[in-house]
Every structure is written in C-alpha cells, then in structure tokens.
C-alpha cells in the first residue's frame, strides 16, 4: 500500500512540475490528522486535518487552503478520505 501511495504522490508532483510549480514536499494524512504518507516532509500534520475541515464547513463546497510566508506556501485540500498538503515555492 505504501508503494501505491508513493506512486500517487510522485504522479501528483509531476503534474505540478509540468505547470512550472516547484514542489518541495507532500504530506497525506487522514481526517483525524494522523500521517498516511509523506515525501520530503519532516513536520507532523497535526492541525492540518482540522483546518481543512473548518474550511469545508465555512464554504460548504470543496475548498483549498493556502498558507503563505514570503515565497513558501502550503496548499491543503480535503478529499473524500484524506487530507493532502503540498509544500511548494510560490510561482512568481
């Protein structure tokens, strides 16, 4: 199962790279905030799942949360079963 996750993460990174966005890390966790898979990320997901859940209840639709600090940003989205965080460099 880990290999499948890794393959999915790699294909997602490839899609981002194709549009010119530099991906530094990907983290997948479940809705309770427990880590399922990660690539190049050493920070634990913690409140990521909670944030995605709050965003979904704010809007009622599928939402993407983007946290930014200068050039660094993390994109968080909740899917049906998991929460995905993608750490990228801001495309200027």
């Amino acid at each position: 199962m880990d290999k499948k996750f890794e393959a999915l993460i790699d294909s997602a990174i490839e899609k981002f790279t194709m549009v010119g966005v530099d991906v530094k890390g990907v983290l997948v966790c479940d809705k309770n905030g427990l880590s399922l898979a990660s690539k190049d990320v050493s920070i634990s997901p913690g409140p990521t799942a909670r944030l995605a859940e709050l965003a979904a209840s704010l809007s009622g639709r599928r939402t993407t949360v983007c946290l930014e600090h200068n050039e660094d940003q993390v994109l968080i989205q909740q899917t049906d079963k998991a929460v995905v965080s993608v750490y990228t460099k801001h495309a200027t």
Partner: protein
Amino acid sequence: MSSLVKVFDNVPDCVGYLIMNEEGSIEHSHGDLENNENAANLIYKMVLCAAKISVHPTEKMSFKRFTVSDDQYVYCISCASQRIYVAKRRQESSANA
C-alpha cells in the same frame, strides 16, 4: 478606527470584509460577512489552527497570510497589530461567467 476599514477600499472584487481582534470579537464587518457570527467564529478557529501549521516542510515557519478558496469566492486572511483582517472576494472565473 475608520482608517482600519479603508484598507479594504482597494481590494478588487471584494464582496465583504471582517476585522476581528485577537480574541475573536468582531470589530467591523461589511457586505457578505456583515453580522455573520458563524463565519467569524469559523474563521477565528481557522486562524488559531493555521498559526500552528508550518509553511515549510522541514523548518517551523508560520504563515503571513492565508487564503481559503472554493470555485466562487476566496477568503483572504491576514493578521497585523493584534487584529485579524478578512476579505471575501469573488473568484475571477465566476465574475466573467
């Protein structure tokens, strides 16, 4: 106090804004977010949550601003001088449709 509100004058496609203090109490609200206590509470909880999430995959770095976007609107949230500023803007694609 009105000088705080003026910051939203130049925000394009703004349908509402909200200014809260650091404890989550609403100081100013306008438009879609006017008197919307539910949204204000949710956004306050999100700010507290987001403050603990690192923006960098290996170093601990907290956000300077964050956005919540769906297909119709985007909430732009930032904090300064012990206040939380929220602007609700229409997404470009829905404005053109």
